[in-house]
């Protein structure tokens, strides 16, 4: 029995390790997440105290021996009144605690809603099975930027996210920065986030959306304002010309094969909008919504067999021979 208890305790401790790192609601890195983490801790602590008190109240009479009374059936109005008082007090306390917690979460919600009231940057995040389309809005049309799966934001500034979807319901959740909010087809939800410090925070789709729901990750990359602006300007540039003959062959293949039907590469005729924009694919950290890290080998693995890496994903296997595959990879690898 004791052994079992220790094993249970040990396992619980191991799970606790999951509570820190780049994707944890208990390791807040922004005002919204801090507010929520505080709420989680307070609710849990209060409920734990109440639970212990209730258990004590329950166990005491069970463990105590019944009082030997001379006349068990005799009425004792004094004792009844005392018991009634205990019940009334307990009901009163319960009501007060429930109302108190409701008020707390209400005020927490107000804080969350106020975070982005003066947001200067608006980003539209569109959920697709199973990746994220990210569009930076700007009053100047030529500065509107579309990318995928990675969301760069300026650190220390509130950012407004407009969440929507084109197929099924997804949910946007970056635990270290904010709570969850659904992406609903034909509807826009507004989520305001703010990262206090520069850093990389991982997010995950939090609403089951089909076969590859588990591999629908995203990254929020918070950078100092100057770095963020430089990144935005870089990303606005069309893809540069291929650097080598092999990469040039890769570009030609990309444009003459099915790739061109789905993907966009700025500066080339490839203008598909149903799949991630690849204009600066090599500048991203991961491939296929956090499924693989970015490297030449992983690019080749993905293009050769997307259905092996992410079975059911909406990128079909395109039959290519070894040379063709190498050329395409060389081309994409150069799209920094």
């Amino acid at each position, binding site marked *: 029995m004791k052994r079992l208890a220790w094993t249970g305790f040990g396992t619980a401790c191991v799970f606790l390790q999951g509570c820190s790192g780049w994707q944890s609601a208990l390791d807040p890195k922004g005002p919204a997440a801090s507010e929520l983490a505080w709420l989680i801790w307070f609710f849990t602590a209060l409920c734990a105290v109440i639970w212990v008190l209730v258990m004590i109240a329950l166990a005491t009479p069970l463990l105590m021996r019944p009082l030997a009374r001379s006349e068990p059936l005799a009425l004792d109005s004094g004792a009844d009144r005392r018991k009634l008082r205990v019940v009334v007090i307990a009901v009163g306390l319960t009501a007060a605690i429930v109302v108190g917690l409701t008020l707390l979460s209400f005020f927490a919600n107000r804080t969350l809603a106020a975070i982005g009231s003066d947001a200067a940057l608006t980003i539209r995040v569109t959920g697709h099975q199973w990746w994220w389309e990210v569009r930076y809005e700007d009053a100047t049309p030529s500065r509107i930027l579309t990318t995928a799966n990675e969301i760069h934001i300026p650190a220390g500034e509130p950012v407004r996210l407009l969440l929507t979807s084109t197929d099924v319901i997804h949910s946007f959740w970056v635990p270290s920065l904010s709570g969850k909010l659904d992406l609903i*087809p034909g509807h826009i939800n507004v989520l305001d986030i703010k990262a206090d410090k520069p850093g990389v925070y991982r997010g995950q789709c939090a609403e089951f959306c089909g076969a590859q729901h588990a591999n629908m990750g995203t990254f929020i990359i918070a950078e100092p304002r100057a770095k963020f602006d430089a990144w935005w300007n870089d990303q606005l540039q069309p893809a540069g010309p291929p650097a080598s003959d092999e990469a040039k062959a890769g570009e030609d293949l990309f444009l*003459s*094969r*099915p790739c*061109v*039907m*789905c993907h966009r590469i700025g500066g080339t005729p490839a203008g598909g909008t*149903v799949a991630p924009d690849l204009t600066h694919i090599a500048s991203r950290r991961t491939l296929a919504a956090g499924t693989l890290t970015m490297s030449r080998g992983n690019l080749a693995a993905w293009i050769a*067999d997307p*259905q*092996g890496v992410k*079975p*059911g994903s*909406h990128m*079909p*296997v*395109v*039959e290519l021979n070894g040379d063709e595959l190498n050329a395409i990879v060389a081309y994409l690898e150069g799209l920094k």
Partner: protein
Amino acid sequence: MRHGAAMFLFTLLTLAACQREERDTRPQSSLGSGEQPMPVTTLEPGGQRPSASDNKAASFEANAFHLSEGKRLFSWFNCSGCHANGGGGMGPALMDQKWLYGSSIENIHATIRDGRPKGMPSFRDKIPDDQIWELAAFVRSLSGNAPSSAAPQRNDDMMPHPSENRMPDAATLGKSP
């Protein structure tokens, strides 16, 4: 003890539900390439038409997964730009019984892959072969040529017709029931 055994058997039974529908998402090259000649007309020297059946056809027709993929690709590849949602526009309607180039899945596959002279572009090399078969199977379902148990059952946007699984059978189309 008896109860224990019964519970165990019951649990075993529920495991049967863990089987997932199988989906062929990889190219089925072993089934053929769809490369054999497709008749565009019935006028053949010698009165004999080349065989117009493909091994691949059977595994795509009447398969709910492939039909729904075809439906998605129909808008992804902008077939709807010329054919609307089957009702026709610059290209002919695909939800009626009239076929300019044959109604069999092989003929439709050939239409999509090689194009047709009066404005249907060729998608050879632009759409992987399996996806062309998916599109062809879906095009057939637009005119009720797919079992209602497999045809797509929901439209996400305005359609000139009910969802594909509620389309009348081509044989009864145009006749009152």
